[in-house]
């Protein structure tokens, strides 16, 4: 059995149990949390090294062969995503430890956060639809607690709609799994890939749409995104950052996985391209209308999901490679931007643009930390966003999908516009005359607490490194995409190891 494949799930779960037992011994909990996530990151890197040549590692737990046993599958796409998300989880944990009112005020933060990490890893690694449901539930249950743990009126109200909508999506997921099992007699994804081709094409298409709806709610694609800008901004800054970076991307990951492995039919999908275009446009218009930093960024999440679906809808190796690269870029940039948003809120006590202003005078470093990922989000060269969008545009033009390419470029300009809105509102202009800065806080730290600034800076630098390493990263994405388009390697690795 391949041990590193199970570690990203087992380590955080065991860590969560120990963390629970440590009770209010905060120092030990912090060290434990960081150590566990460093271990997870290391295991993910080892896995990525194993599969970076396009090979696929399949592990069956308890030595029951697929399709009977529980399967974990590590392919290049999953390992790549695992590495990036482990890095984000680690950076955000350090940020949460540094932030004055997160981890020691709420005694369950550390265990719940580690459970979230286990759920994220399990969602990437599982090779079985029902275990995907369980992994989703682990992640979501942890996220329910994290989004409401302040127990304030606002958090309870926003958290409530989040819980209800996700619980409904989970029930739909179970429904889809049940129908799938009734139609094919299996829930193992590699097994399904073969068996789904044997059933009635109409039934297969129906199941495909049902799964698209289920994961579309999680990924916040049009028209299923309304819960997201409502729920995310209410949570604490580190929580919002990790949700923005990872949770919707897990939805996108599962859409990509199921639509390629189970429901792919070789050509571009008009349904996905239309959904992609609408998601981009509606998301960005929503962002332009808002005047709160966290809400603008939340609508951007929606808009950027459109780009990922766009690459998937093309259904070519180039398109999927661009999508993989774009998802990785987004995880990095979105987390960074929300962390910077948290720093602004920490320093001034608000994220509302109408109350902010002139922060470039107060802390130029913070301004720089915001500007670099913001330009990257809009896709200004040379930034990671530019590289990823260029790949998408090229892939789109290659097979003549000019309309969606033009749309994506127009949305990029609007993205830049709304980033400028934050920039002009928060950083330029005269400093607010009555800044709601909590007494004593701003004086002690010109930018913010060191443990909050350090991980943010690290992620900004990682975003810059992304551009430098763009060529090898794209090659890696291409290897991942090749296995997504040609599913035979995946099926062989699981069914006949």
């Amino acid at each position: 059995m391949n041990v590193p494949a199970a570690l990203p799930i087992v380590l955080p779960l065991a860590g969560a149990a120990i963390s629970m037992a440590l009770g209010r011994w905060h120092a030990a909990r912090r060290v434990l949390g960081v150590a566990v996530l460093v271990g997870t990151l290391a295991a993910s890197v080892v896995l990525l090294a194993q599969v970076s040549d396009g090979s696929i590692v399949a592990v069956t737990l308890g030595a029951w062969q697929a399709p009977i046993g529980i399967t974990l599958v590590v392919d290049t796409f999953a390992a790549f995503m695992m590495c990036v998300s482990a890095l984000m989880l680690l950076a955000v944990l350090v940020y949460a430890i540094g932030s004055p009112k997160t981890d020691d005020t709420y005694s369950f933060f550390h265990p719940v956060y580690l459970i979230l990490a286990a759920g994220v890893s399990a969602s990437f690694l599982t090779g079985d639809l029902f275990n995907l449901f369980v992994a989703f539930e682990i992640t979501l249950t942890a996220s329910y607690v994290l989004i409401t743990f302040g127990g304030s009126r606002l958090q309870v109200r926003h958290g409530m709609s989040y819980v209800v909508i996700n619980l409904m999506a989970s029930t739909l997921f179970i429904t889809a799994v049940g129908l799938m099992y009734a139609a094919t007699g299996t829930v193992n994804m590699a097994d399904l890939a073969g068996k789904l081709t044997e059933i009635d094409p109409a039934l297969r298409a129906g199941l495909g749409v049902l799964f698209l709806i289920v994961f579309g709610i999680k990924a916040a694609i049009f028209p299923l995104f309304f819960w997201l800008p409502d729920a995310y901004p209410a949570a604490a800054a580190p929580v919002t950052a990790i949700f923005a970076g990872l949770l919707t991307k897990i939805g996108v990951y599962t859409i990509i996985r199921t639509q390629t492995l189970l429901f792919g039919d070789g050509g571009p999908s008009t349904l996905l391209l239309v959904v992609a275009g609408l998601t981009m446009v509606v998301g960005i218009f929503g962002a332009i209308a808002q005047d709160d930093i966290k809400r603008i960024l939340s609508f951007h999440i929606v808009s950027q999901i459109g780009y990922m679906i766009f690459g998937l809808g093309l259904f070519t190796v180039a398109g999927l490679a661009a999508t993989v690269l774009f998802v990785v870029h987004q995880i990095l940039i979105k987390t960074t931007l929300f962390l910077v948003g948290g720093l602004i809120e920490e320093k001034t006590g608000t994220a509302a643009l109408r109350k902010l202003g002139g922060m470039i005078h107060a802390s130029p470093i913070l301004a720089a930390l915001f500007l670099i990922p913001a330009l990257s989000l809009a896709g200004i060269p040379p930034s990671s966003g530019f590289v990823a969008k260029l790949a998408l545009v090229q892939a789109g033009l290659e097979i003549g999908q000019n309309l969606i390419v033009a749309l994506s470029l127009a949305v990029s300009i609007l993205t830049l516009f709304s980033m400028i809105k934050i920039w002009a509102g928060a950083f330029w202009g005269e400093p607010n005359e009555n800044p709601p800065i909590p007494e004593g806080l701003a004086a002690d730290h010109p930018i913010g607490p060191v443990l909050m600034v350090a991980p943010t800076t690290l992620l900004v630098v990682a975003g810059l490194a992304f551009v430098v390493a763009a060529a090898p990263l794209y090659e890696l994405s291409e290897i991942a995409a090749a296995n997504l388009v040609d599913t035979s390697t995946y099926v062989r690795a699981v069914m006949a190891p």
Partner: protein
Amino acid sequence: MIIILAITVAVLYGVGAFLMLQRNLSRIVIGLAFFGHGANLLLLMAGGRAGRAPFVGEGVGPTSDPLPQALALTAVVITFGVSAYLLTLAYRSWLLIHTDEVEDDVEDRRIAEMAAARTAREDEVPESTEDLEDRPT
């Protein structure tokens, strides 16, 4: 009979969806429970015809498929746990604001009102520049 089960599932989904569209939190929670029961029953139906012998033992004839039952069991436990959490949230919400209604997205309404106010102001914009000169700047 499987047809009765199918009708039951349909009714459970229908009632659940109807209740979830209400504004009262308690109804939404009950609606989710109905929805969940429908899904579990559907899983059970995926296991084959009703009335077949269970998997264990040395029965004669076809046995029912045990996997959907295991799946349903897992789903029941998960739905139970999350419903309990949702109920505590609802209770917390009751303690905080003494109402059972799901509120609107306030920020969203504020943005909409801002846009409406802006449109209203634009209606007042004078048609020629002469009018502007009379106005104090």
